[in-house]
């Protein structure tokens, strides 16, 4: 059974249809990349899958781990193991990073009927993951994303992912705003998480990220539809020929 099956997904924001019939299947263990020009609907797809309620689904269905994803609230999807690394991570003043993460982990554990983690169980894992992302210990007690640089925010997203250990991780333009060193660290974090039980949907505008996180499949999203799918070589082809090439193909013959 596929981990994620998207069928004929249509979605709109404020009455404008952005997704116009997306079909996509991901299996556990796979890394898929979605590429596409600005405004093609990449981030909308990510937000819809994470169940943001300001995005209206008008048609289609999505099965996640055999369950109806579109019937879930954001927190239910999260507790079922779906994680979104935000393109623009949000600041939560006054709430420490470690406290926030432990609260999130415990919310998820509670949903799954598992015992809550106390600070003693939590801290060693947290320290280890901080190291993986080459992040400073001082970050533990700083407020969530407050006063973080763009790169620190993105690294923090991956840190959260590493702690929450999702089944499906969606990375929404995690590479934007990262310098090459930060990009390498983030990619290292993601690669360390790759496993047979976990799938990734990596959304990016540039091919650059895919040099570090090599996907199994690449899909090209143009005007709300996937117009081409292929292996990693497709990303290189896009880099060379530009999106204009696929946009031409998007026109009905």
């Amino acid at each position, binding site marked *: 059974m596929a981990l994620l099956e998207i069928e004929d997904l249509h979605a709109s924001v404020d009455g404008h249809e952005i997704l116009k019939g997306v079909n996509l299947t991901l299996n556990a263990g796979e890394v898929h990349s979605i590429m596409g020009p600005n405004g093609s609907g990449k981030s909308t797809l990510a937000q819809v899958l994470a169940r943001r309620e300001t995005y209206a689904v008008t048609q289609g269905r999505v099965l996640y781990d055999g369950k109806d994803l579109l019937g879930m609230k954001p927190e239910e999807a999260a507790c079922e193991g779906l994680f979104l690394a935000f393109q623009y991570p*949000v600041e939560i003043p006054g709430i420490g990073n470690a406290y926030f993460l432990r609260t999130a982990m415990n919310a998820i554990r509670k949903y799954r009927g598992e015992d809550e983690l106390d600070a003693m169980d939590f801290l060693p894992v947290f320290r280890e993951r901080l190291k993986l992302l080459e992040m400073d210990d001082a970050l533990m007690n700083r407020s969530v994303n407050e006063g973080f640089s763009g790169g620190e925010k993105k690294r923090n997203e991956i840190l959260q992912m590493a702690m929450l250990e999702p089944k499906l991780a969606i990375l929404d333009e995690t590479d934007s705003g990262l310098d090459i060193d930060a990009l390498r660290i983030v990619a290292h974090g993601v690669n360390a998480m790759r496993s047979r039980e976990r799938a990734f949907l990596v959304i990016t505008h540039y091919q650059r990220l895919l040099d570090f996180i090599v996907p199994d499949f690449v899909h090209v999203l143009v005007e709300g539809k996937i117009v081409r799918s292929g292996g990693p070589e497709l990303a290189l082809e896009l880099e060379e020929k530009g999106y204009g090439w696929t946009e031409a193909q998007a026109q009905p013959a």
Partner: protein
Amino acid sequence: MSTSVETIRDLAQQEYKWGFVTKIDEDRVPKGLNEDIVRVISARKGEPEFMLEWRLKALRHWQSLERKEAEPKWANITYGPIDYQDIVYYSAPKQKPALDSLESLDPEILRTYEKLGIPLEEQKRLAGVAVDAVFDSVSVATTFKGKLAEMGVIFCSFSEAVQKHPDLVRKYLGSVVPYTDNFFASLNAAVFTDGSFVYVPKGVRCPMELSTYFRINAAETGQFERTLIVADEGAYVSYLEGCTAPIRDENQLHAAVVELVALDNAQIKYSTVQNWYPGDKEGRGGIYNFVTKRGKCVGVNAKISWTQVETGSAITWKYPSCILQGDNSVGEFYSVALTNNRQQADTGTKMIHIGKNTRSTIVTKGISAGRGQNTYRGQVKIMKSATGARNYTQCDSLLIGEHCGAHTFPYIDVRNSTARMEHEASTSRIGENQLFYLRQRGLKTEEAVSMIVNGFCKTVFRELPMEFAVEAQKLLGVSLEGSVG
């Protein structure tokens, strides 16, 4: 956020958890306010002559204010006229409790405090907190008195203090808030029925937190308590105050006065978690919380610190203030005020700098939800004598939803050019993006709101004693239920 609306609506219909009524025989005076009533109150309490005289002077002053229609109307709050002749000014549980034994206390009252999570039996209390329980107009129990007495700390009901320590009462009563201070303070001085009294002698660091738990039970009754805390030279005391009331359709008046006196090198830390019944969603019922609280740093290097978490009451009108008279004295005010549904709050502080090198800090967090209206009103006054005075003010507002309001009225009056003043203010709204972010990490909507609000209030909660901070966080969560949808 349509899918969360239903859960939120269910939560909103949760009742105010402290709204029950205790069935008990009351000894009450007839409604109305006149000299006879004041004489009756004073007589019931067996007060010495000086107290009765003081009360009568206060009454006459209040009556003159009432004739002049001098009830303060400048605050950013609206309410119908209060009929001061339609209030019962004294109500006490009929069986008069012996002040030094819990065994003689009516078991109904004991159960009431148990239900409120305030067990009065000492063995059930946390060892570090002594409690004075005020039920309607009288103090019903004070715990750990013996242990405190060993160190010379006096912690008792005001009534008992009048009997046993008349000299201290006479010396300090009205020394910070005179009976002429304002309309509600005059009213309180005339009819106040009980409250707590604390005296910490020279050089003593009070070994435990002192706390008073106020409960209004009787209908049509006003609660007028008076608290007086004196920290003698070099003394330290931390005092906590909590309050609840039953759910009733009519509004009830609570007009309290708190006076703090800190002598040379003394420190008083005063914390409040105010959770009077706030009224229902349509604004029916609830407590009018019209309170005058003021501290005076009489001596050098004295420090008074107010921390308040105001989540209850239909209307809150209160400005815990500091008069910084001694050189190098310090005043602090940390406040969280939350208004949900139709609650209104006009609250803040006054920092009056008189002595040299006096310092004050004001940090306020106003949270408005539902149709709540939240006003910060603060005055910082630097007198001519206050060379080298400093003030830092930070005043933040958080809005939840579309129908609430936040208002800020800072008054700054500087008469000495060496003063250094800083003022920061911000207004923000809980964003859909913040909620979505937290929900994407697995938190339910109400947990997410609660987390954002607690983060917003952190700098104030940090000032509360540990036990209270936890209570305050929970209370904020409960008070916010139904605010997002």
